[in-house]
């Protein structure tokens, strides 16, 4: 129970921070995306899948897209990150390594969102993102995300500590 509450608070706080965080040009860091990546990278149980799904769903609720698009995109990206990390890599944590993962994961999320939107607009007339996005804005987005990986990584460690602390309390009752 403590775990669910702490995860929910973390997601809502990062969503709120994403909404009000000042923009640089037309770009801004995507804190919920970073949370998804960091957990997919670190966790070995299924927690990261739930977290990825609900992080995406939180973005869906406040975004101008079809409900479920970010949820599915984050979920698939998280699974791929986790699978590739566990299967093909065994190196220790390094900034360069995480930087590559964040960059590739962001490109994957953008691709998935674009594909899912393209599939969805066959039933609707609006197009929430455009091809123009891919060429003019994406690189600044990635740069800003790379800047904020470390704070989000530290936040994930803090969240785990809190979960361990309160889980012990729950156990003692």
């Amino acid at each position: 129970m403590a775990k669910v509450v702490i995860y929910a608070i973390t997601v809502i706080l990062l969503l709120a921070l994403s909404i009000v965080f000042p923009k640089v040009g037309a770009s801004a860091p995507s804190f919920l995306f970073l949370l998804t990546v960091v957990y997919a990278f670190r966790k070995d149980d299924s927690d990261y899948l739930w977290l990825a799904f609900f992080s995406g769903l939180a973005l869906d609720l406040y975004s101008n897209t079809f409900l479920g698009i970010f949820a599915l995109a984050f979920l698939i990206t998280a699974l791929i990150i986790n699978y590739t990390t566990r299967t093909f890599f065994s190196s220790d944590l390094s900034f360069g390594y995480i930087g590559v993962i964040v960059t590739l994961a962001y490109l994957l999320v953008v691709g998935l969102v674009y594909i899912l939107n393209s599939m969805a607009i066959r039933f609707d007339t609006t197009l929430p993102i455009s091809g123009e996005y891919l060429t003019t804005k994406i690189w600044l987005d990635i740069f800003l995300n790379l800047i904020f990986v470390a704070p989000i990584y530290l936040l994930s460690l803090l969240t785990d500590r809190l979960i361990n602390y309160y889980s012990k309390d729950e156990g003692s009752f």
Partner: protein
Amino acid sequence: MRSKRQLGVFSLLIFLGLVLLTLSINGLSKPIQSTGVQPSRPLVYVFSGIGNSFKSFFSYFSSVGSVNKKNASLSEQVRKLQQENVALQQYRLENEKLRAELDYRQKSAHNLVSATVLGKDPSGFSQNLILNIGKGAGIKVGAAVLSEGFLIGKIVSVDSFTSKVLLVTDPQSTIDAQISATGDNGIVRGSYGSGMIIENLSQSAVVNKDDRVMTAGLSTEIPKGLLIGNVGQLQSQKSDLLQRATVISGVDLKNLEFVSVIKE
């Protein structure tokens, strides 16, 4: 065992996501969205204050940087005064923006409702604003949103207490417009690179720099005669069938704090 469980969770969530997507495509997801937004709303209010502090924080550092170049031995007292000065400057700017908005409201013939900007689209995929007024204030989808007399966007979704604005600079945004001086009609479209572009102007149209661009009023929601901005640079060639030019808004769309919504 663990990977089997992960696969089970993944399949369940994929199914749930596809159900939500299907509901959304068929326009049945509004109740879910409204319910889902409610728990986070109080935190969004709290964080909008913190977000504004970020702006003060960054402007504080930029001002300290320039002062350090002039005098490397700033005392702690001077630093405190700088901080106060930044805060006062923020208040002054906020005051000026409020006065400008109020001045336009008094002159305008439209029925305007004031709103505060709570935040922007968190996904970064589109250029939206979230306002602190919704159905309760009589806001409807499609209503024009103004700042200091300039059209900045239109309402694209409304719930009980908040509404979402699609900015004119978003590539999804298209607005029927005309050049005020000549009456030539075109379409103003958002653009990531140039902010706004007026296009589909006929080759015979005379387009000059700084010409005013107004709404044409061809759609029912946005009234005619609202100022969108001024013509910047002509982008089309003489050989092009239709002309296009950049449009520069009179307001800074990245730093909007107070806006007005036309309530008809």
